[in-house]
């Protein structure tokens, strides 16, 4: 399984903190996003925002980074701490 976490405005818009997906057929972060939109058409706009960032196993990553079973993927808006 792959755990996918959402944060901040994206978490609120999707009304979801995290989902677990079977890793089958998901080779990169972009595949995960496409899969989520296919399963939840109402998530299309929120997950299509061009400024979203991703992390794989708690390290910043690009959407084409490969993913494996057991990975933790996170999708979130630009950070605004400090």
């Amino acid at each position, binding site marked *: 399984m792959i755990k996918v*976490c959402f*944060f*901040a*405005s994206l978490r609120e818009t999707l009304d979801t903190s995290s989902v677990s997906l079977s890793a089958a057929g998901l080779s990169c972060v972009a595949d995960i996003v496409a899969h989520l939109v296919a399963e939840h058409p109402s998530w299309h706009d929120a997950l299509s925002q061009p*400024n979203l960032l991703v*992390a794989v196993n*708690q*390290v*910043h990553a690009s959407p084409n980074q490969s993913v494996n079973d057991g990975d933790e993927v*996170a999708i*979130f*808006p*630009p*950070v*605004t*701490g*400090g």
Partner: protein
Amino acid sequence: MMSCTVVVSEADFDPAALLSQLHEASPSVGAVASFTGVVRGDVTGTLQSLHIEHYPGMTEAEIERIARQAAERWPIEAVQVYHRVGRLALGERIVWVAVSAAHRGASFAACEFVMDYLKTRATFWKKECFMDTERWVEQRQCDLDKADAWRS
């Protein structure tokens, strides 16, 4: 070997105790540069508080990566980063970054470097809470530009 302390917590921190830790840690510390971020009122005067969310685990790991990068660029002794999460009222401390070194140039540069990268890479999100509405803060282009400037 640089020492690095990263704490993300709802609790406030004590700048005096943190400063003392840094300069009592080693006789070779001659300089401590520090930065305190504070919840600032907005121009309309209607901001009530901030709510800060973060990504537990990644936040701490990312800040530590930033601190290690600073230690590769400048001869520094220790880095402290304290960042609060949850609800913060106007005037409350949000963030503390302090860097100790033998000399002041390294401490200033590394402290500003850590703050600039923290702003653009550490996984915190701020929501502004007004009397009757809330709004997620947008990332500012000038913050991205500041972090990018360290690459040159």
